């Protein structure tokens, strides 16, 4: 009776989530169906031809560029986000804290198109950076920072920083000042405290930040299109090209499935990493709630 009512209640509570996710799952299924279609323009019959067609250098290079740029940007974003999160966590004044938070959130608020044009103004051949360098006589010909992988990487890093800062910031909550002081009193200098105490305690936050950033950047479309031009064919751009000039719908669907499999694989790996590293004892082993560790 009770169990029945509580399961009914959990179903009711998860209804909004189910409604939100249903169209997405439907689309995924539709894409999957299209990818195994016998014809490239409409869904009819079954064939794995679209997948076999993907096994050519152009598409494989696209997969490689996508994984490489997503992984590199994830690494750089994490390295940049840890100090940002630690600084925000250490700020005591509410106003300063809020200002910092809003600044970090800015890339989420601004349209990707506007941000990409911002990068073009800064880094383009006649942009701010190149003009300044030329006028100071440091270079004679403009450095190419746009319409290549460097430009795309910069854009991916910049737009994904807020996605990493906030999970890491929430992970800093378990680190009390007394942990750091305890390590220090036992003989650890600042770097050792960072490696031995701060980083391990941030690990769950780091892993979730990494998986969000990787998934977000692997499926990026606007940034590679605007900052990479046609030269940097990340999967998002490649899929669009299959649809729009080529009308190869089943090929695009198959490429989409490949992207979904890659990102899902990375997310599952991250989840496994969290479970293995968290070292959290099973609830039955815990005799008392965890130490709160709040400073005096």
């Amino acid at each position, binding site marked *: 009776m009770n169990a029945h009512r509580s399961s009914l209640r959990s179903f009711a509570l998860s209804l909004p989530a189910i409604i939100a996710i249903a169209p997405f799952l439907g689309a995924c299924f539709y894409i999957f169906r299209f990818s195994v279609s016998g014809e490239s323009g409409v869904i009819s019959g079954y064939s794995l031809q679209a997948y076999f067609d993907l096994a050519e250098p152009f598409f494989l290079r696209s997969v490689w560029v996508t994984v490489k740029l997503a992984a590199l940007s994830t690494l750089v974003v994490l390295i940049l986000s840890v100090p940002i999160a630690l600084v925000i966590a250490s700020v005591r004044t509410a106003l300063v804290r809020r200002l910092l938070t809003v600044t970090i959130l800015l890339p989420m608020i601004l349209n990707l198109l506007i941000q990409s044009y911002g990068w073009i103004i800064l880094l383009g051949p006649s942009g701010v950076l190149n003009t300044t360098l030329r006028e100071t006589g440091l270079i004679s010909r403009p450095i190419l920072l746009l319409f290549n992988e460097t430009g795309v990487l910069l854009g991916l890093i910049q737009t994904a920083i807020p996605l990493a800062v906030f999970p890491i910031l929430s992970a800093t909550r*378990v680190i*009390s000042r*007394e*942990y750091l*002081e*305890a*390590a*220090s*009193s*036992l*003989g*650890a*200098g600042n770097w*050792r405290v960072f490696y*031995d*105490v701060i980083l*391990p*305690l941030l*690990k769950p936050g780091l892993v979730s930040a990494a998986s969000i950033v990787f998934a977000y950047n692997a499926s990026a479309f606007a940034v590679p299109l605007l900052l990479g031009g046609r030269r940097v064919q990340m999967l998002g751009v490649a899929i669009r090209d299959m649809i729009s000039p080529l009308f190869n719908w089943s090929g695009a669907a198959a490429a989409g499935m490949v992207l979904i499999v890659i990102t899902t694989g990375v997310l599952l790996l991250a989840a496994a990493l969290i479970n293995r590293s968290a*070292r*959290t*004892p099973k609830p039955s*082993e*815990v*005799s*008392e709630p*965890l*130490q*709160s*560790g*709040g*400073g*005096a």
Partner: protein
Amino acid sequence: MSTDLKIEGVSKNYGSVSALRDIDMSVERGSFLCLLGPSGCGKTTLLRIIAGFEQATAGRLLLDGTDVSGVPPHKRGFGMVFQSLALFPHMSVAQNIAYGLKLRGIDKARQRDRVEELLNVIELPTIADRPVAALSGGQRQRVAIARALAVQPKLFLLDEPLSALDAKLRENMQIELRQLQRKFGVTTVLVTHDQTEAMMLADQLVIMDHGVIRQSGAPSEVYRAPADAFVADFLGTANVVQGEVMEDGAVMFLGMRAQDKALQVQGAKVEVAIRAENIGVVEKGSPERSTLGRVEFVRDLGPSVESIIAVGEEKLRVRSRASEVTSLSAGQQVGLKIDPELCSFFSR
């Protein structure tokens, strides 16, 4: 291994707020000093200055005669137990205890031996591989102490480490802590607001209030001869009542006269501190009585009887042994026996 500590003229200001004023204190090699005071008295700030987590605005810290004021905490070689214990949640018990040894570059085998030795000392030989979260409060306490002592600290610092434990466990831990400290012979400074704990542990008691030291000395000495009314009131249950010095030098208080040679100022107001256990309750007609009072409240605690007895305007807390008082009831008139020799007199 252990050292002595001298604190000379230490002050600490936060902006215009002064948290510590001109603290002088010394801790002898191997002795146990308790900093005792109400919350906000500066005791924790003083401990944090000793540990190196805060910098004193003025003054010096001498360790065996060497000034260590400028040395960062990780180079001081002290062991500290924190109020929250601060055991690293991502490490096992053994990793926690061995952490300081690892930082000192001691090899794995010797680390293991030392951890085993310490776990035996704290009588928890089987918990080495458990995660910290799986320990009980008392076990965590012992592990935190073992971690701080593993590195053979020059100074052992404790910041209200027992405050999170329940009363019974706390008493046991106090005894254990004292025994451990003796065994390791380490110079120790402990901060507490619990006067029973301080009396139980300390060789030397330092009573602080509002950033200054009010009195320092052996616990029994401070208890028997408090320097002022604050100390008398803070340590144990004391009644502080108003008195007046008469022309002949006697002090009038609670309607009784006491001859006191220390105070010869005529007409001056004084404060008289009388411990609850130093007030005897006798028959109202007894020749032993020094003054009369009216019982307002009685409760029998088993070994002792606590009562509140009104004498004129003053209300006295009285603690009598159960065998001495047969029957006390509210509203009853009683005689009180107060020995001026056991009272402390402070001029105001």
